[in-house]
């Protein structure tokens, strides 16, 4: 709004750029939305809590990072879910693997990331992120005394 008052022409250019960028990326977003809607049908909250409740920690972490990577969830759904799981006795370590991969590793955002950065970089970045998530999970386990 302030921008319009200061300089009309520049603002108009800005809107044009916004519009062009937006239109350019819409197909990738559509692809992502379609994937999200299908994946979330197969991977429900209930399923996640069933599997993460697994007693073996390492299976727990593996499954948690798998779910975290393949799904996409807004924070206002993911964290309350984690809160519930925590009360159910799921360890911090497993939950951190889940939330960190959820945030950093995006298999579903692949169509968008690919469009900006190319296939190779997208894959490298996601693999690195997966490792970071695992290190974070192990550290959380260490600090909460859950490793042994």
């Amino acid at each position: 709004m302030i921008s319009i008052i200061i300089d009309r022409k520049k603002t108009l250019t800005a809107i044009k750029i916004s519009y062009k960028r937006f239109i350019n990326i819409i197909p990738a977003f559509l692809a992502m939305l379609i994937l999200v809607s299908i994946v979330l049908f197969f991977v429900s909250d209930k399923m996640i809590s069933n599997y993460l409740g697994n007693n073996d920690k390492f299976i727990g972490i593996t499954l948690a990072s798998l779910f975290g990577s393949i799904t996409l969830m807004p924070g206002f759904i993911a964290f309350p879910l984690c809160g519930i799981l925590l009360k159910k006795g799921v360890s911090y370590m497993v939950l951190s693997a889940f939330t960190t991969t959820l945030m950093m590793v995006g298999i579903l955002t692949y169509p968008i990331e690919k469009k900006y950065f190319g296939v190779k970089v997208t894959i490298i970045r996601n693999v690195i992120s997966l490792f970071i998530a695992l290190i974070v999970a192990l550290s959380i386990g260490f600090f909460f005394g859950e490793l042994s």
Partner: protein
Amino acid sequence: MKMQNKHIKALAIVIYFVFIISSFMIGFKPGKQIGHNFISFSIEMLKLLPCAFILIGLFEVWVKKESVEKHLGKDSGAIGYIWIILLAGTIVGGLYVAFPVAYSLFKKGAKLSIIFTYIGASAICRIPMTIFESSFMGIKFSLIRLIISIPLVILSSVWLGHYLEKRNYRIMEEK
């Protein structure tokens, strides 16, 4: 080859929508569920994306290339990383908002390692999200997560930046 790919994609999208619409008509439950997922996520994104893209547009016209280059470009030091993490902390949405912003930053002359730090940081340390997280998981959990992950994000971004610069990597050119 490329053309063919496009046709397959378009066909897949059409099949998807036909499937959803017919599911609603005949009351096929899984299809309806998928349709609901699609709609709720689309609404979520339509709330965020137009604002995000307008901000990107404004950023493109108002922020000078020199100033981005100075603070986030090749000669920016450690402070550049602090700036970009703070900037990432204020973003809303998720990776899908971070990508277009990162692209804009790149065009304005920010260096690659800064760009990847931005993407990583906007995934892990968005301030509103972290506050929300700690209310469910406890402050200790959030703090450990941030203290461990931020250095790792910076290190891996620096590495990836160097690696790609050696190979003359270019981010997508605008069509």
